[in-house]
């Protein structure tokens, strides 16, 4: 099993966990923007997220540490010795503490942090700045954003398969998939929709409401069982069929009356 499919194997987690796992798959596919936004959306909608949400399930870890409290993660992340890879914390400012950063500082600090901890993650995160800060404008104090950075880097670290590059032992290399590196998952391939459709997919994912009620899709697809790309593809077909339905022309093509439904 590929680690990138891990979202499917959570049994009805709370949305926050999905968000984190989405973050992981984000790094796998280098498509971070929408997932960062997704993660931020949860943070924004739950100001008390860090205290309210008790655990983060980490799949495929040794049984003894299969889950950690979020507080553990935050504390661990500030300790130079307890980073999952042990390598990156040397690059971090000694004054780093999860709740001490203001949003205006986050961009540089967090990305430095990501660059140090997880080069691939940092690289992937950089193009997301504009999008990320579009969301940050609505964030009241920005204090959680650093924590987000930590979560992202941790999430990446837990899934990293790149440890040999840094000559650092990764405990998780033994438990995370043994597939060849050349293998691709569908998630790694891009499905580029129009911005409107992309927003529609985001909204669908957040609300669970199928975006086109006129198509009478019943029962609606269980969104938690599908990856973002899969939802995008379902959304694409639905958009096409709905467009023709709204023009009164679904029966004028070979398939738009039958698919997706």
């Amino acid at each position, binding site marked *: 099993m590929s680690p990138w499919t891990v979202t499917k194997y959570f049994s009805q987690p709370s949305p926050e966990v999905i968000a984190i796992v989405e973050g992981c798959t984000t790094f796998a596919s280098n498509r971070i923007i929408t997932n960062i936004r997704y993660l931020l959306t949860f943070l924004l909608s739950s100001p008390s997220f860090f205290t309210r949400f008790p655990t983060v399930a980490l799949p495929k870890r040794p049984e003894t540490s299969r889950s950690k409290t979020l507080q553990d993660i935050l504390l661990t992340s500030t300790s130079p010795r307890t980073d999952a890879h042990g390598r990156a914390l040397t690059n971090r400012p000694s004054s780093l503490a999860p709740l001490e950063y203001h949003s205006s500082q986050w961009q540089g600090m967090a990305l430095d942090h990501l660059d140090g901890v997880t080069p691939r993650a940092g690289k992937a995160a950089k193009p997301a700045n504009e999008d990320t800060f579009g969301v940050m404008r609505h964030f009241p104090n920005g204090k959680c954003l650093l924590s987000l950075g930590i979560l992202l880097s941790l999430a990446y670290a837990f899934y990293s398969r790149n440890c040999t590059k840094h000559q650092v032992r990764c405990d998780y290399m033994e438990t995370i998939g043994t597939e060849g590196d050349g293998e*691709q998952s569908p998630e790694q391939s891009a499905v580029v929709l129009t911005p409107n459709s992309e927003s529609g997919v985001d909204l669908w994912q957040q609300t669970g409401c199928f975006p086109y009620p006129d198509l*009478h899709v*019943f029962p609606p697809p269980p969104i938690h069982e599908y990856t973002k790309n899969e939802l995008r*593809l379902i959304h694409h077909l639905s958009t*096409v069929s709905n467009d023709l339905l709204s023009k009164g022309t679904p029966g004028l*093509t*070979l398939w738009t009356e039958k698919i997706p439904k």
Partner: protein
Amino acid sequence: MSVSRIGPVITPSHSLTSQTLRARFLSIASTYPYVMHALLAFSANHLAWETTSKETRNLYLQHGSIALGGLHEAIGSFSRANADAVLAASLLLLWQTTDWRSWSSLRAGIQSVLAAMQSWGYESIFTQYIAEDDLFASSLRTHRRRSSVDHVESGAIFQHTIYSVQRLQMSLVGHEFELRWVNQLIAYLQQLQSVNFPQTPEEQFNNLYRLRKWLFWIPVALLRRREEQGPALLTVAHYYAVALAIEPLFPDLGQAFVSGMALGSLETILNVTNAMQSEHGLNASSMEIASLMRFPQETAIHYRSRATLTSGIAFSQEPGVFNVDPNALTYTTIGNQSPAFVPSPLYCGGSEQTASSSTSSYLEVPTIVPAFTYGTPSWGAAPSPGVPSPAFTAPEEQTYRYSDLPLDDFRGGFVAAAPVWT
């Protein structure tokens, strides 16, 4: 130009009950992952055609491979419980097949499932789809029937078809989007006309595959636009009519290949244009539209009457019930670089590609249109909206290998797919 004056198009809306009854693919897909993968492959296939994205195409191949593997497994444990899902996945994959063997294999599989369901007295929404697409489910029963059309007659059919589409072409001045597709259709017909008539079923499939692909995607592209619907509707009607007119010249394929599906859609368009005509009376505009629609109308009438006749003959020759046997439906041609593997198989060869070239034997079309391009490195999209028009792009079997993916075995049929990334 008066063709603009058709529309807005409002077809009789389906009742809620009908819509709900039809709501099956996605609901079955929620329970059977291989149906979902077939549906996702269909979506990625369409999106890849629209965007010419290599990544999206890979996604289509990946989902297709997984769906195929799942379907094959499901056939091994075929039962009343999974019959609907097997039919749904088979249909979705059938619509996406790119080569003759996959197509005929899936067709045979569908017929077997239908026969089994018939013996149980079990009807499903998918049996209705199949009945609609394949008027009287006759194509398999009349498999390998020979065409009663001789070369002279087939030449006349091509000539009349091309003439009719050229008339449409003249009426579409100023409607560049529609003109692009009409020009493409004429060029395709002229190429078909100029090649030796295909003898084997595989050659016939390869010759007509491109038209089939167009019929799936182009009407959607035309009818989704916000612009006036009239020119789009006329263009779509002609695409369908062309399929109805020339598919009978490829007797090994049968109605299920595409014309059976096209007939229903064309008749819906005819209802719209006829209703419009009776509403607006005999003014110059509606007269011209009626004149342009004569070819689609006559073709549809002729096709339906002939299909009825054929089905009567075929029905009397029905060979009996098929057994659902996964082994009978399996073949392995893993890694076969079928010319039809690429999305735009109609080959418009350049000077460096001769008709006898082993890698370009597909639809041996001589170079007849100097403006065609060859060797466009981008994914030949048949051409899709993402490809500059009006140049054709060459199929990519010469340049595009899927060596980076373990997916060469997915060509849309009953191939036991190797694990992809699990």
